[in-house]
């Protein structure tokens, strides 16, 4: 009822002058950027990424250079043995935790985002197809999805990663290919409802091919929320990578990733908690910043699309 009603109201609404001729997308970004949360998120994210990209290079500290004599130094805020070169302390082999975390962040971001990207591509494509065509296609694709869904990631991991020395691409592949079904399901359900809508029919009548409809009509409509959901998975994938490291299928040393830093640091949790904890904190910051931006963006979209002025 609410919907009908509001529409009745908004009928004669005069268009706010400033909105004239401004494309929707730009309006959304404006709205998002207007909120301080978005700015904070953006700030944190930019800082982190910038640090990850430049600090190691500026500081000239080599994340893989061992300095055994200076191992397990505490960070500056506790303990007294810390050095300027390692404000966040050092790990079990005396490498600077700050640089390692930042470089780790680099790789983890790479892994997290490209994994999720892979998941989205595969999952959404399959979901889209089976939701759009329904019938046999749907049946087959969904059975495959369920099958995939019911295989524990870990087993897929050992088989695929067992093949060769686990490299970052291999890991991305494993994680991505083992986690897409969730998205297939979500997309499918959304598409199924949307596809029944009349505007889809209208497009068909105007002569649009199915592909055209999926790409230009449905995808733009259903992707954003799905992508928004997937932000959590970026983090989950980074964690999964650490689980792989934990059973010896992770990225090989000396390359630092959050995964293997945490996995190796685990042993020292009792007397050098910072090794395993720092990446977690960085991870949390990254995630929160991305999440903040995502959330505000989503809110902005809903506001604009929800017809608020």
């Amino acid at each position, binding site marked *: 009822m609410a919907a009908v009603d509001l529409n009745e109201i908004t009928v004669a609404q005069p268009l706010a002058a400033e909105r004239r001729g401004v494309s929707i997308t730009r309006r959304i970004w404006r709205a998002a950027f207007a909120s301080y949360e978005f700015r904070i998120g953006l700030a944190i994210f930019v800082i982190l990424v910038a640090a990850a990209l430049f600090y190691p290079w500026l500081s000239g500290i080599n994340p893989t250079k061992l300095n055994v004599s200076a191992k397990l130094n505490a960070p500056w805020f506790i303990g007294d043995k810390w050095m300027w070169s390692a404000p966040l302390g050092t790990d079990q082999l005396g490498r600077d935790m700050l640089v390692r975390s930042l470089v780790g962040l680099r790789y983890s971001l790479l892994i997290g985002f490209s994994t999720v990207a892979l998941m989205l591509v595969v999952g959404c494509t399959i979901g889209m197809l089976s939701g759009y065509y329904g019938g046999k296609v749907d049946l087959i694709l969904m059975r495959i999805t369920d099958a995939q869904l019911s295989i524990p990631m*870990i087993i897929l991991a050992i088989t695929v990663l067992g093949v060769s020395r686990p490299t970052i691409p291999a890991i991305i592949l494993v994680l991505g290919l083992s986690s897409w079904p969730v998205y297939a399901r979500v997309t499918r359900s959304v598409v199924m409802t949307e596809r029944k809508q009349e505007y889809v029919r209208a497009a068909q009548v105007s002569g649009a091919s199915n592909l055209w409809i999926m790409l230009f009509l449905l995808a733009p409509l259903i992707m954003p929320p799905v992508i928004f959901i997937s932000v959590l998975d970026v983090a989950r994938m980074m964690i999964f990578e650490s689980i792989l490291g*934990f059973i010896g299928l992770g990225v090989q040393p000396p390359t630092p990733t959050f995964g293997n830093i945490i996995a190796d640091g685990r042993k020292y949790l009792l007397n050098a908690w910072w090794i395993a904890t720092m990446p977690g904190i960085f991870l949390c910051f990254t995630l929160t910043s991305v999440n903040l931006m995502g959330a505000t963006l989503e809110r902005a979209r809903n506001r604009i699309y929800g017809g608020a002025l």
Partner: protein
Amino acid sequence: MALLSFLARRISQGVVIIFLVTLLIFTLLRVVPGDPVRLMAGGMAPEALIEEIAKEMGLRDPILVQFGRYMTGVVQGDFGQSFTRPASGASTGGTGFGDSSRGDRADVLTLIGDTLPMTLQLAALAVIFALIITFLIGTPAGLAPNRWPDRLAFYVSSIFVSLPNFWLGIVLALLFSVKLGWLPAIGYKGFAYTILPAIVLAIELSPVLIRNLSGSLSAVMQSPFISFGRVRGLGRRRIVYGHALRNASVPLLNLLGIQISGLLGGVLVVEFIFDYPGLGLLTINAVLQRDFPLIQGIAIITSAIFVLINIVVDLIASTIDPRLEY
């Protein structure tokens, strides 16, 4: 009648799924380098012996033949025998060639049978905890979108999701088991041992659920019958708990059904950390020892469980919401 036919349909589909899984895993495991026989016999074993054992175990036949043999076994409830484990069920390793002299090996099924209940108990408790957390945090968030409870939920889930489960496991064990001595942590000698691992799993599980619940709840709160309910004279509590949550719980259920398979990943690590004698520990050892029959067995069983759980989920969902035609 309707129910029966539903079950018939879903179970037949489930069988297909399980078959696919088995086929996939089976072939994958066969293409992994690293000859299982060498693992069984131990590295010191001479090639001749390896070949001999392999032959006698039929591991040199074409994959399809092996698969056929395996499946015929499976349908008769015979999942084969562990490569490395003795009947005693001990997790074994080390190297000893002339493996032929090993004590008779454990049946995969019995191994799983012993550990599965433990894990189910753990998983069930974890899910319960997760749901409690989810409802405590997610409901207010869903009722007050974009206000502080929503923010809270948002930050909490951000933090939860960035906690590596083994990190959390150790920290909790240190805190509650060593420092405070409230809960036992390592091994299993009673129900109490399930609590800590379950909490860790719950925390790993909850972020997605929280987000889902708050999302769908706020969506439901938008729907006409909620505001109309007020006009019909229903109290807010009744509307929220009697109707809104009821509707919002359906997508939550489905998500939960999907998450189950993800749960095993967590169970694995957590059981290893807490030395909890469940399927997860079995799996990780099977993986570490490349105990292929065991891995296969576990894969089949887990996917079967997954199928069953999802059938149950759909049943519950369709009793909650009759429109979901089952």
